[in-house]
C-alpha cells in the first residue's frame, strides 16, 4: 500500500470510534448491534436517517438506525440492524462486543412524523426494511395519543427471515395493529402468505386521513405506494425510503443519484409523489 507520512487533523470524513456493547442475531444473516461512545461525539440522529459505518480496514457502508437514543442533542448510543450481503456488512455482523466500529453521521432526511400528527398511521415494511421504520414505530407508540389508528404491515421472504419478532408481539400489545406476511411459508407458519400490499385490506385505517411510511425493496415500495394511493391515501402523504449506492453520505461522491436527487442528501426519505415518475424509468 502507498503509505504516506503526514500530519493528521480531525474532520468530517474521519469516522468516530464507537464500541459494540450489545449484539443479537436476528436471523441467520442479520444482526442488531448497539454501539456506544459516552462522549456523544455525533449530533442527534432522527428516525429514518442513516450513518456511514466503517469496518476498520474493510470499508464503509450506509446503515439506517433501527433505534434512536438521544440525550442532550448528542448521540451516545446507536442501534443498527445489519444484513450480511457483502464484505463490509459481513465484517460488521461479525463484530463482537468490545469491537470498535467507525461511525459518521447523521446523514440524510428523516421520516416526517410531524405530518402524521392527528392522523392515522400506516407503516409498511419489507424484509430488512423493518429496521429503518423501527424508530418510527417507537416514536409513534411513545406518543400514541397524538395519532389515530396505527397499522404496521410487515413482509418477509420466509418466516426465518422475519426480524424483530419480539418487538412485533410487543407492539401489537401497545396500540398498533400488526400484520405479518411471508412470500414463502415454511415450518409451522400458519399466518398470511403473499406480498405486503395484500395485507392492506385487513388493516383498519381511514385512507383519506392517513399518512403512510414505506420501507423495503424498491419494487415492493412501488407496489405498496400504488396500492395505498388506490386505497385513497394522498400521494403527498406516502413517504418511502430510497436506496442507492451511497459511498460518502455527504453528496461528494456522486454515486447515489436518482435523476435529480442525490439520495444521501435529498433522501433516503422522500415523498413518493416526488419520485414516482423516476422509479418507473429503467436503469435510471
Amino acid at each position, binding site marked *: *500500500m502507498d503509505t*504516506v507520512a503526514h500530519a493528521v487533523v480531525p474532520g468530517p*470524513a474521519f469516522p468516530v470510534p464507537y464500541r459494540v456493547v450489545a449484539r443479537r442475531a436476528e436471523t441467520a444473516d442479520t444482526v442488531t448491534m448497539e454501539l456506544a461512545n459516552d462522549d456523544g461525539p455525533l449530533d442527534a440522529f432522527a428516525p429514518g436517517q442513516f450513518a456511514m459505518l466503517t469496518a476498520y480496514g474493510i470499508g464503509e457502508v450506509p446503515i439506517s438506525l433501527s433505534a434512536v437514543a438521544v440525550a442532550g442533542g448528542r448521540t451516545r448510543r446507536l442501534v443498527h440492524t445489519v444484513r450480511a450481503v457483502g464484505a463490509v456488512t459481513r465484517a460488521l455482523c461479525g463484530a463482537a462486543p468490545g469491537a470498535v466500529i467507525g461511525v459518521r453521521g447523521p446523514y440524510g432526511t428523516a421520516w416526517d412524523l410531524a405530518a402524521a400528527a392527528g392522523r392515522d398511521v400506516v407503516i409498511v415494511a419489507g424484509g430488512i426494511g423493518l429496521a429503518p421504520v423501527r424508530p418510527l414505530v417507537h416514536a409513534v407508540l411513545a406518543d400514541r395519543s397524538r395519532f389515530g389508528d396505527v397499522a404496521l404491515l410487515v413482509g418477509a421472504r420466509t418466516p426465518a427471515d422475519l426480524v424483530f419478532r419480539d418487538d412485533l408481539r410487543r407492539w401489537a400489545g401497545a396500540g398498533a395493529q400488526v400484520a405479518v406476511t411471508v412470500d414463502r411459508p415454511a415450518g409451522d407458519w400458519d399466518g398470511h402468505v403473499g406480498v405486503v400490499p395484500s395485507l392492506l385490506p385487513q388493516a383498519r385505517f381511514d385512507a383519506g386521513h392517513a399518512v403512510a411510511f414505506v420501507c423495503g425493496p424498491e419494487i415492493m415500495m412501488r407496489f405498496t405506494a400504488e396500492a395505498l394511493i388506490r386505497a385513497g391515501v394522498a400521494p403527498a402523504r406516502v413517504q418511502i425510503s430510497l436506496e442507492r449506492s451511497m459511498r*460518502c453520505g455527504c453528496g461528494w461522491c456522486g454515486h447515489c443519484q436518482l*435523476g435529480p436527487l442525490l439520495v444521501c442528501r435529498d433522501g433516503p426519505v422522500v415523498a413518493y409523489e416526488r419520485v414516482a415518475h423516476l422509479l418507473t424509468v429503467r436503469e435510471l
Partner: protein
Amino acid sequence: MASGTRPRTPPPALLDATALEALVDALRARGFTVMGPTVRDGAVVIAELTSAADLPYGVGVDTDAGRYRLRARDDRAAFGHSAGPQSWKNVLHPPRALVWSADRTPDGSMAGGEPARERRYALLGVRPCDLAAIKVLDRVLTGGRQADPVYTGRRDGNLIIAVECTEPGAVCFCSSMGTGPGTDDGFDLALTELVDGGEHLFVVRAGTGEGAEILAGLPARPADEGIVERAREAVGAAAGRMGRTMRPGSLPDLLAEARGSPHWDDVAARCLTCGNCTMVCPTCFCTTPEDVTDLTGDHAERWRRWDSCFDLDFSYLHGGSVRTSGRARYRQWLTHKLGTWHEQFGSSGCVGCGRCIAWCPAGIDLTREIDALAAAGAG
C-alpha cells in the same frame, strides 16, 4: 481567496510579457505552489511551474472531435491554446487523494485523522470557462451541509490568475454556456494577452486586494483606454469564433423529456464507455473510496479516486448495477451534466470547454447529441 471582497477596482495596468517571470517569482516568493500550463508528451498539461519559462510560449493547438494536436504558432503567445486534457480539477480534486489514515490503538480502537493541508496553490492561466468550472466545483463540494475536506484543503487560499480567452478552439462553446470568453469576477488577477507584430503585452486587472498587492510589486504601467479597448475587442472577437454552439433553451426540460428517446441507443452504439469524457471534464466530481491496509490490518487508510458514471460498478447496489447498458450510462452522464445538475447544485454542470469532445476517442460531441435528442423529440 478569489471570491469574496472586491475592493475598489484599481485601473487596468499593462505588463510586458517578460514580466511573467517576475509574476511567477513573486508568487513563489509568497510561498505559493504555482500551477499552470506547460507542454508535455504532445499536449498542454497543467503542472507545477518553477518559472515562467515553463509556459507554452508559441504553442497552439488544433482540436476537433476525438482529435488534439499541438502546432507551432507564428507568435510567442503564452496562452494561445485552448483546453488540454487536464483541468484545474487535477489540482483541486486530484485523481487519487488520501481521505484519512489511522492506526489501531492498544485497546482496539482507531486513532488518526485527515491529512493536514500542506500547500497553498496559485493557479496561473485559468480560462474563464475553467474559472466557471471551479465555481461549479465550489458549489458541489463546499455548498452542502459539510464541505469536502480534500477539496477545501487544496482550494482554500488559492490565488487565481485568470487569462481571458482570445484563442477558442474548434470544440469550444463557452460563449453559448455564458461562461466566457471574458470574465469579470472570481479571480485575483485577470490577464488579457495581446500579441501583435513585435508587441507582446498583457492587460491586467486586479480582482482582490491580494491580487492588487501582487500587481503593485510587478513592473506594470498604466494601461491607456486604447489598449484596454483592444483587449476587450480581442475577447469579443473570440466569442464569435467558437467552433461549437450549445443549443439554447431549457436543457433540463429537454433531457427530462428525452429519458425514453431512441437516440440513446444511437449514441450507445458509438460510446466506448471508457470514461474519458468524465475524467477530462473540469466539473465531473464523482469518486469511489478505497480502504487499504498494511498486511497486518493495523494501519488503515481511506483513499478515494476519480470514478465515473461510465463504470459498471458505479451504480452497484447489492445484487447488481442499476445502470448496466451503455445507453443508460451515457444518458446518466449527459442528463446529469446538462440537466439534473441545475436542480442539484443550482447551475449547469457544463462550462463549454469542449474537453469531452476533443478527448473522446470516439469523437462523440455532446452539442450534436443534444441537437439530435431535440430533433428526435420534435419528430
